[in-house]
């Protein structure tokens, strides 16, 4: 009776069906984009021919590589995302550790200030930020995209939540053995919170790779564009409008590396991407 109930439950089939439909909606635009990027430019798109290319070809990828230095753009995106992620994972976990595990004068006020900064839109001060970046000589320099958000309020908030459950007794023991605070962080806390670092790192990498507003403002030459800026200028290049399959070949190239990294990183996380002890 019990065993059969599991199989015949119409409710469960409804849940699976609904999930399947939502998944279809989640991946359809991406698959359709890839499909069009493989279509010869002249191929008709009447009727349901729009969905699949009849004679798949890679010529659009060759054409798009001739319009922009996409290899260089991809390298820029990778440098910005990777170095920004390493910096933010380190700095946010270090600060989160201090906020979670110690008492010091002004701690609560500083933490409230940190939460408050999340409500100030960074775009609001973009004009002075540009002037400051220019004063540093960082216009058209990747540092402009890496340094300003090397430590983020939300990252520190999340790390503090996660590190809060690290057992205090272990820290006491290490201190008796003569370990300094940084060594406790580096040798004991980091290995334990590695899953949280991986999850946060994945999200930070995605955000930096996909960032558009700041590179659009700071990167002024084709060679220094990140992939997102490069893709955004594809529709019109050299005053001519680019054919759709060529544009979408560029768009596909900007999305696939990140998707590949995402799927690889997923393999290292036992339960898949989760925000761990997210208690709000």
């Amino acid at each position, binding site marked *: 009776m019990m065993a059969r109930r599991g199989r015949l439950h119409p409710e469960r089939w409804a849940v699976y069906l609904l999930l399947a439909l939502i998944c279809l909606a989640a991946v359809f635009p991406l698959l359709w984009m890839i499909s069009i990027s493989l279509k010869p430019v002249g191929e008709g798109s009447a009727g349901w021919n729009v969905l699949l290319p009849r004679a798949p070809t890679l010529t659009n990828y060759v054409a798009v590589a001739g319009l922009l230095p996409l290899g260089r753009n991809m390298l820029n995106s990778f440098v910005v995302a990777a170095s920004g992620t390493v910096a933010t994972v380190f700095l946010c976990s270090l600060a989160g550790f201090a906020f979670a595990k110690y008492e010091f004068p002004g701690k609560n006020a500083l933490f409230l200030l940190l939460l408050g900064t999340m409500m100030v839109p960074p775009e609001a001060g973009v*004009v002075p930020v540009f002037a400051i970046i220019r004063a540093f000589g960082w216009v058209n320099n990747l540092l402009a995209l890496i340094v300003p958000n090397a430590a983020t309020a939300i990252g520190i908030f999340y790390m503090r939540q996660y590190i809060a459950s690290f057992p205090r007794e272990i820290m006491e023991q290490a201190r008796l053995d003569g370990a300094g605070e940084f060594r406790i962080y580096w040798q004991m806390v980091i290995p334990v919170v590695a899953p949280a670092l991986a999850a946060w790192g994945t999200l930070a990498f995605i955000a930096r790779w996909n960032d558009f507003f700041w590179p659009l403002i700071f990167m002024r030459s084709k060679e220094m564009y990140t992939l997102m800026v490069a893709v955004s200028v594809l529709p019109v290049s050299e005053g001519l409008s680019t054919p759709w399959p060529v544009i979408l070949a560029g768009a596909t190239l900007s999305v696939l590396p990140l998707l590949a990294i995402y799927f690889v990183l997923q393999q290292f996380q036992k339960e898949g991407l989760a925000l761990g002890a997210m208690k709000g």
Partner: protein
Amino acid sequence: MRAHSLLRRIWRARQLYLFISPFFILFAIFQFLPLLWSLYLSFHEWNGLGDPEPVGVANYRALLRDQMFHEALRNTTFYWIANLLLVIPLALLVASLLYNPWLKGRRAWRTVLFVPYVTASVAIGLIFKMLFDFNSGLINMALGGFGLDPVPWLTSVELSKLPVVVLNVWRVTPWFTLILFSGMLAINPELYEAATVDGANAFDRFFRITIPSLAPILFFCFVTLSIDSFRIFTEPYILTQGGPGSSSLSIVQYLYVNGFRLFKLGMASAIGYVLTAILLVVSAAQLYALRRQSGLSEVG
């Protein structure tokens, strides 16, 4: 005497201040200083060269009369409300589908469901442009299949905001699903078992246990989604360029146009200040509502 011991406590914690300092230093240089500077600039006229020329409240007064800015405010408010009405319920639905204990392949479902958040708005905005295209868009073709007339999604003043909303909802819902699902995992399963024994159905369990248990996280979602909605830029920039006319223009887009296309830096700063003020009011209102409702005194 007391001041002396406070200084000693601060000195003893110097390493901890060092640990938290990078964020505060970066915040001071790249957010706080710009915030003060743009307050100053908002009372000036400046094209980036030479000295800013003081103009009093002229920029703010101009914004009061600026029809385009009013439209940007209305559009952005529309994006905000549409996001709240669509993203949070949808994310709750998907998270609770995933939370079913008997669900098989949960990890695979989650991996696929998160894909939209991984794909960039810029790239996917281009394919959404084809999806909503008047002549060859898939949506109009599907409508044609039912014998309906094609709809000018991207090129009509009345409808141009809808594709922007669809793209935005499509892309950010997985993020909120992840947060809400992570929150559900922290709910004590015994609560559900007890409720089931008492004869509560799935509907009751959702509204009596899931929602109240998630209250702090839902609040977090509301606030961050509100802030992100008011900062919307990429989606209208790629899909409609804010048009036709300014029917889908967002506040940040208008700020960008003033600052980096027209070089009206004083005006752009004033727009930035209006945006900051709106966000502070919205955040404060939500915080106030939360305190009244649940008596929660702690956000952290």
